[in-house]
């Protein structure tokens, strides 16, 4: 089971009322390479991977849910007091007519989340290589978000999240090395 801690993993500050940035951030909320996709992917793959690397999948999946909460906090803060007109100017009119300012698992273009974004192949190497790719794609998404954002406080939190992708990528790469290692394989000829 999971227990909730009433705190964010990293402080989220937003300096300007800018619903346009909220729209962009939805890419990391309900997008193909976003935090929801990452969390669900690893959490689901952990059942069918050798014991030696279950912990990596379990614990990174758990951290991704904390990142999802950070992204949600950013979107919430950037839109909570925005008027319908402000949301329209930000390109969020389509979002507003369906959701008001409620959060929804969409990507930045309004495409709803789908499980088709993620895979569980059951082959440990195939799954871990997908996970490494997922981390690099999420890292790249954070870079493009930092490139189009001019909010220094928001960028500070986005840099934290980007750096986490670098560390996660490292751990998945190590997981591959652990599975490649032959030390405790009994060779039968």
């Amino acid at each position: 089971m999971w227990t909730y801690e009433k705190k964010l993993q990293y402080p989220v500050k937003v300096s300007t009322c800018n619903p346009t940035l909220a729209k962009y951030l939805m890419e990391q909320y309900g997008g193909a390479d976003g935090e929801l996709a990452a969390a669900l992917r690893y959490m689901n793959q952990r059942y069918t991977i050798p014991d030696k690397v279950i912990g990596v999948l379990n614990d990174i999946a758990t951290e991704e849910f904390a990142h999802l909460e950070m992204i949600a906090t950013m979107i919430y803060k950037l839109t909570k007091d925005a008027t319908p007109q402000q949301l329209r100017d930000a390109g969020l009119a389509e979002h507003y007519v369906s959701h008001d300012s409620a959060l929804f698992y969409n990507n930045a273009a309004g495409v709803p989340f789908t499980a088709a974004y993620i895979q569980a192949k059951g082959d440990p190497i195939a799954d871990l290589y997908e996970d490494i790719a997922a981390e690099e794609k999420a890292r790249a998404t954070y870079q493009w978000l930092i490139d189009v954002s001019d909010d220094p406080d928001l960028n500070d939190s986005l840099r934290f999240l980007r750096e986490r992708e670098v560390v996660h990528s490292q751990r998945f790469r190590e997981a591959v090395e652990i599975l490649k290692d032959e030390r405790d394989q009994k060779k039968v000829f």
Partner: protein
Amino acid sequence: MNSQPPPFTNVKSYVPFRGPCDPCPPIGRKYFSTPPSLYLGFQPPGLPQFSPADALRKGTLWKVFYDYYDNPYRKGAGKPRG
């Protein structure tokens, strides 16, 4: 000849092909990241760490993974850091 190899950087770049009919002014160089996790291999024990406060701020406990990112296309942006 005393040419030294250029210093290592985690930001790589290339110049995209320029066609005779491309409508936009050239962007110059395109940049991409090659973060430390691509080079380290299996992390050896005992690597230098940040203090807890700095680790949180930077997003990594171990210094070797720290890879600051800034928009490389921004006007007046300094040279990408290594």
